């Protein structure tokens, strides 16, 4: 392994295998826990089932960050952001099928 490879940064792939505790989730999104709770209650994100404590996978993290931006930038409320995300994700799935 050369010098460059040794110094290469290793990140975390934000997929279903990446698991975040609620504390980590808050820190990465830079928000407080009650806001995460609101996002869960409004159906923006879903926690992982049956883990004793509130945990989320990497895709939920991407969804939460996207929802936060939509709420901040477009003035949406949480149910509106959840709807926008559902529709965007459906659109993206259809586009990826259409592009095959």
């Amino acid at each position, binding site marked *: 392994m050369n010098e*460059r*490879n040794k*110094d*290469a*940064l*290793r*990140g*975390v*792939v*934000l*997929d279903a*295998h990446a698991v975040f505790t609620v504390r980590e989730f808050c820190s*990465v999104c*830079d928000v407080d826990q009650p806001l995460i709770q609101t996002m869960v209650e409004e159906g923006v994100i879903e926690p992982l089932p049956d883990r004793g404590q509130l945990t989320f996978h*990497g895709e939920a*993290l*991407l969804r939460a*960050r*996207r929802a936060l*931006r*939509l709420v901040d*930038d*477009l*003035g949406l409320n949480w149910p509106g952001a959840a709807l*926008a995300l559902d529709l*965007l994700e459906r659109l993206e799935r259809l586009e*990826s099928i259409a592009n*095959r």
Partner: protein
Amino acid sequence: MKFRDYYEILGVPRTATAEDIKKAYRRLARKYHPDVSKEADAEARFKEMKEAYSVLKDPEKRKAYDRFGADWKTGQEFRPPPDWERQTGFRHANMGGAGDHQGFSDFFETLFGGGRAGPGAFREGFGGSSKGEDVNARIAIPLEDAFHGATRQLSIEVPELDDQGRYRHRKRTLSVKIPKGIVAGQRIRLADQGGPGIGAGGRSGDLYLQVDYEPHPVFETQERDVIVKLPITPAEAALGRTVQAPTLGGTVDLKIPPGSSSGKRLRLKGRGLPGNPPGDQYVDLKIVLPARIDDKARLLYEQLEKAERFNPRASLVT
């Protein structure tokens, strides 16, 4: 430094009311928001709009900005007036202050980056600390890199604080590990590689790197599954033969069952992209003929035609 015409960016006249400005911003934001838009330059354009809106929606900032008058145009060489702070109360430098405009231009930073000064005036962000800007980037990798894992270099633009406490955008080159089995469209989070934290104890932002595949001449993908079209001869299709088929892991021997039609799909379990579980490779057979059939082959086909009792269109006959 280049002047920015914030009215032009939002597409409103200089006489626009606060309500007009808000409406114009919302309409443009729905069109160019990077989470919604398919426009190639959506992220950059949206940042510009956000910056313009942050100035024009704030009566104090708008009043200060309006001092420049209508003669200034976007892109004109600009130097901030020396008495700017005395005249408007806005500071040039931000002393590590406000946090929500790290993605904004040097033009903005110079005029408004330091917030307001003066007795009783609110200094944006002063004394507080907050997380630096998260940075989004994309990289296209060859499919082989996703199969084997790789280290890739990439250049990103990240805001940094200069000596005077102003944010400047600097190009930074990073070396990033692409993990084996990454799926097109997935994102890698690189902690602390975004913009600098604000104030004492402010953490750095993160870098979110979206990974896509470059188009591949041989393989297509669906998530972790790999698909290849494999050309075979009519004889191989009819008689069944073992042929060589490409996979990302190298060439493998593939048994074609006798009587295989074009379009038949064969599965090589676990030969797709690595993962838990790994993807499969699908081989779609495609019977091909040479452009010119020689006399010997023609004779044999004619014999076959006479001998064969097969009507592939039987089900179409009404």
